[in-house]
């Protein structure tokens, strides 16, 4: 009961979705989009568990005055403020039926003032990390590393004047080695070959994993038959 019914549910849902691709007739038609909405709804319910867990962790930290507990106050108040502003549509034009993200609303204000800069800045840290990773990783230690280095180097200098001036003088028969030409070739030939092989492999991996899940061979996510 604790394992058989879930295994059956997985099997039926999985098989019907696969069949739906081949059957335009009701009830299979549109099953994919229907189920994806079902899935989204279930994921919203899961938010109660996730949000509850987040609050529990931080409230306990505050209560026990554990290391860095003061920062947990920041998390909890940020969470409460944003959730309140959004769910209650505070300051939004048009009252309850207005747009929760509408201009003038507190939710929108917090989004612009805090969420957006935080997100963009965190993302932009990548510019620094991409540089430090290139410095460490692109060294001609082995043949594989050398290929990685050369391919990256060609693409890296492509948008710079260096990419042009380094090779523009090449005679006509060797023009294919001119960096702008060479970089396009690297992207559309070896890069494409590699990406294709990866994609074919991934597709097989996903087909096989899906099958293992549908057939109930992979079932670690289901926990045990005993007391759950």
């Amino acid at each position, binding site marked *: 009961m604790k394992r058989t019914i879930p295994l059956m549910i997985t099997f039926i849902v999985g098989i019907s979705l696969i069949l739906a691709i081949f059957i*335009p007739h009701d009830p299979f038609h549109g099953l994919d989009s229907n189920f994806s909405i079902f899935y989204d709804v279930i994921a919203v319910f899961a938010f109660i568990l996730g949000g509850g*867990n987040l609050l529990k962790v931080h409230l306990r930290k505050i209560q026990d005055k554990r290391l860095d507990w003061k920062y947990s106050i920041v998390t909890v108040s940020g969470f409460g403020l944003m959730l309140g502003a959004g769910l209650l549509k505070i300051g939004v034009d048009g009252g309850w039926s207005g747009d929760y993200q509408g201009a003038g609303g507190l939710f929108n204000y917090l989004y612009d003032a805090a969420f957006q800069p935080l*997100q963009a800045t*965190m993302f932009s840290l990548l510019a620094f990390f991409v540089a430090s*990773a290139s410095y460490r990783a692109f060294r001609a230690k082995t043949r594989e590393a050398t290929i990685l280095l050369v391919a990256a180097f060609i693409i890296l200098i492509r948008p710079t004047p260096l990419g042009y001036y380094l090779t523009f003088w090449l005679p006509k028969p060797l023009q294919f080695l001119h960096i702008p030409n060479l970089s396009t070739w690297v992207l559309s030939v070896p890069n494409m070959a590699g990406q294709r092989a*990866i994609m074919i492999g*991934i597709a097989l*991996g996903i087909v096989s994993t899906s099958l293992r899940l549908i057939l109930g061979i992979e079932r670690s996510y289901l926990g045990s038959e005993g007391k759950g």
Partner: protein
Amino acid sequence: MRRYAVLVIILLVGSHLPASLFAQEPTDSAAVLELVTVPPPAYFEVYDTPSDHGGNITLEWGLSPDDGDGRNNVTGYQILRGEGPTGYFEMVGEVLKGTTQFVDNTADEGTQYHYRIAAVARTGLSERIMAGPVVSRQQWFDRTRANLLVIAVLLVIAISYYIYKGAIGSDLYIRKIAGLEAVDEAVGRATEMGRSILFVPGIQDMDNVQTVAGIAILSNIAKRTATYETELDVPVSRSLTMSVGRETVKQAYLEAGRPDLYNDDIVHYITDEQFGYVAAVDGIMVRQKPAACFYLGAFFAESLILAETGSSIGAIQVAGTAMPTQLPFFVAACDYTLIGEELFAASAYLSKDKKMMGSLKGQDAGKAIAMIFIVVGVGVATLAAITGNDGLTAASEWLRRLFSLNF
């Protein structure tokens, strides 16, 4: 005056003549005065659109002899629909000249329709031809996907066959996967150093098979941390992943015989926001300094932020993802990387379960199929291109069609 007379005639001939035709009326009256009869389409047939969900009827006709040829007067075609051979016909569409097909996607399922078509010229309409009756229905099989079905069935049979072989205990060889051999090394090192292990199952939800694969690997890693009594930390960015992850880790601790070491806090939710999550995980890394970091699942831009921070604290890092965009960063910044398909092979490999190993061999059969078709396809296409032979060209086209999305 004569111009008005012509207008009246046009109005009488085409009871549903569209307004746009009048808008095109040239001011040069000479063209209007020449009243000619337009020949109708060469033939007209209608049928229920195949392989669909109903509601569509396909109309096909032959060009009017004056469409692009002859007097070349035809500007388009007008299509009318009625629910019987006589009675009221409403207009359902107009198409430009040179067109020979139209799909009426406003048909009601199960209703009998008759269609009429007429060629339209500036001078008027041709005689209308009628076709029907026709009824639109839902079909039980999408013929355009027959090839996909064959390929899917082939793969399913190959994988199931080897799963079966595994189940009956046949010996299946699986090569060493370096990244996975490193799992034990990483757990061992963390235990020696008395530090924790960080596991990141990607930032996607459970509807992504990569997350499912990551969680399956987590199950194997959790069994090891339970055995060695090493601390495990699994921050997640999706609530559903948290629920499934907890169930998985709990089960792993149970199987390892250490349910006492399990608590729900091992798997904890941070935030759904990609960069909020990564900000928090970075914080965990620099403050707790885990000895080993695993990144196994679906990753986006955060991959490099995680891997570079992990590298700065000197952790041993094992990554694996099927996101082709992020693989380069993991390859550059981590000690071991599971590339694409290897991620999905990992749980089978680590669990040493025979049935799971069998499915890997099944995947290899799929690869063999892919390679054979690529080689044959390229060969036939090349021969066809060189010789120009019709038979070879047809064979090459057929092979390509076999792998097209609309068979």
